[in-house]
Each structure stands twice: as C-alpha cells, then as structure tokens.
C-alpha cells in the first residue's frame, strides 16, 4: 500500500463528515421523541414527520454529511473513512461536558480515549488501497 498524504482540504471534508453526522442524529432524536409513537401499520406517518422543524434540521445536516461523505469516498477507502470520522462522537461528548456542563463518567472518558486512539491509528495509515493496473 502506498501512503496517500491527505491535503488540508481533505482533512476539512473528513471533519465535516464527523461533525454533521452526530449533530444530525441528535436533531432527529429530539424531533422523533416529540411525536407520538408510530406503528408499522401506518408507515406514511414517518414521511409526515420529515417536515417538522427538528427532523428537518437533522435532515439538512445529514445532507451536508452525505455530500462530504461521497467526496471522501471518492479518494479514500470505506474502511478508512468510517473510523476516521468517528471522532464526531468525541466532539459531541466534549461539547456536552464543557458547554452544557454535563457529567462524564469514567467509562465515557475511557470511550473517548479509545475512539481517539482508533482514529489516530487509522489516520496514520494509507487512506486508499492501491490496485495493480489491468494489463
């Protein structure tokens, strides 16, 4: 495997993937917990909630995530992009600790350390599998 060095722009794209995905999921969760339980018998109700504010904002963030994710997949492997962008989970936890003053247990700090180590591991390696050109 040759080592592809990522440019600053490519790191920014990975950061956008990492930030937009957990923020989008949080908005979706907030939106979905404020609507009555939806049963499998009425799947059309799932489409109606798409137009509520929190779910709408979550979808907008997830569209930003998807555009950057597609760009990242065009120059890096799936098995590189997914762990490398998991740092978003750490950002959300740190945001909750230092801005919302939530308590973070020892287990959560352990989780943060493991994710940071994992991201560090994968980011040190090549971003893409080299293939021999077809003769």
């Amino acid at each position, binding site marked *: *495997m040759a080592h592809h060095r990522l440019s600053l*722009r*490519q790191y920014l794209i990975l950061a956008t993937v990492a930030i937009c995905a*957990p923020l989008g*999921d*949080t908005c*979706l*969760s907030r939106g*979905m*917990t404020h*609507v009555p*339980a*939806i049963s*499998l018998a009425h*799947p059309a109700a*799932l489409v109606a*909630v798409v137009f509520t504010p929190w*779910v709408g904002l979550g979808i907008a963030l*997830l569209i930003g995530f*998807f555009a950057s994710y*597609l*760009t990242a*997949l*065009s*120059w890096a*492997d*799936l*098995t*590189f992009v*997914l*762990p490398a962008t*998991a740092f978003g*989970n*750490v950002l959300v*936890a740190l945001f909750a600790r230092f801005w919302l003053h939530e308590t973070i*247990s020892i*287990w*959560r700090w*352990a*989780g*943060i*350390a*493991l*994710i*940071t*180590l*994992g*991201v560090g*591991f*994968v980011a*040190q*390696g090549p971003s893409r*599998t080299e*293939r021999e050109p077809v003769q």
Partner: protein
Amino acid sequence: MTAPWFATAIIAGVVVLSTTGEVLTAAAMKSIGDLDDIRAQSGLKGAIKAVVTCPLFFGGVGFLAMAFFALLFALNHLNLSLVAPACASLTLVTNAVAGKIFLKENVDRRRWTAAVFVCVGVYLLAH
C-alpha cells in the same frame, strides 16, 4: 417497554440496510474516481453529473434511504443512547467485513484495530 427481541430486530435491520447502502455507495464512488479532480476539470456540474449517472450510486442511496427510515422508526421506539452507539458500533464492524469481501479493500491490522477501538469506544461513550 420494548421487548428485547424487537429492539434487536430493529437495530439489526438498520445495520444491514446501512451496510448494504454504504458498500454500494463506496463502490459507486470508487468507480467514478476522485470528485475533486472531476470538479477541477469539469466544474461542480460535471462532478454532480458523474455521480447521478452512476447506477450503483442509486442502489446505494436506495438502501441508505431505507436505513434512514428504519433509523427514524428505531428512534421512535428506542432511546438515542441505545440506537446511536449500537448502530454506529455494529456498522463499523460489518462495514470492515463487507469492505474486505466486496470492495477488496486492504483491511490490515491497523484498520481492524482502529475499527475495534472505535466500536468499543462508542459503546462505552453511551454508558
């Protein structure tokens, strides 16, 4: 209170749909090539055209859309603190396996270690 088998089935559904969508999308983007290069040569329109004229891309988006509605359904019945880490952790592992088998990616020891660390880390973060 949601039955454990129901919660497991919902989460498994999200993971399977999401992994299939991500593998198909990754295969599509690999076949298209570097979007930054395409945009430099033919502009944003050219890059969008390259993506939307790839049939594999629509297969991937179709599965990701199903995964999205399955996720909405899961969030409606289960807590975010269960759904988000469970889906994120399991999807990392299933994607590593699927990436190796279907996309022929070189999932070396470094990537396996990273996937396992992130997987356990996401689980701990939710508890």
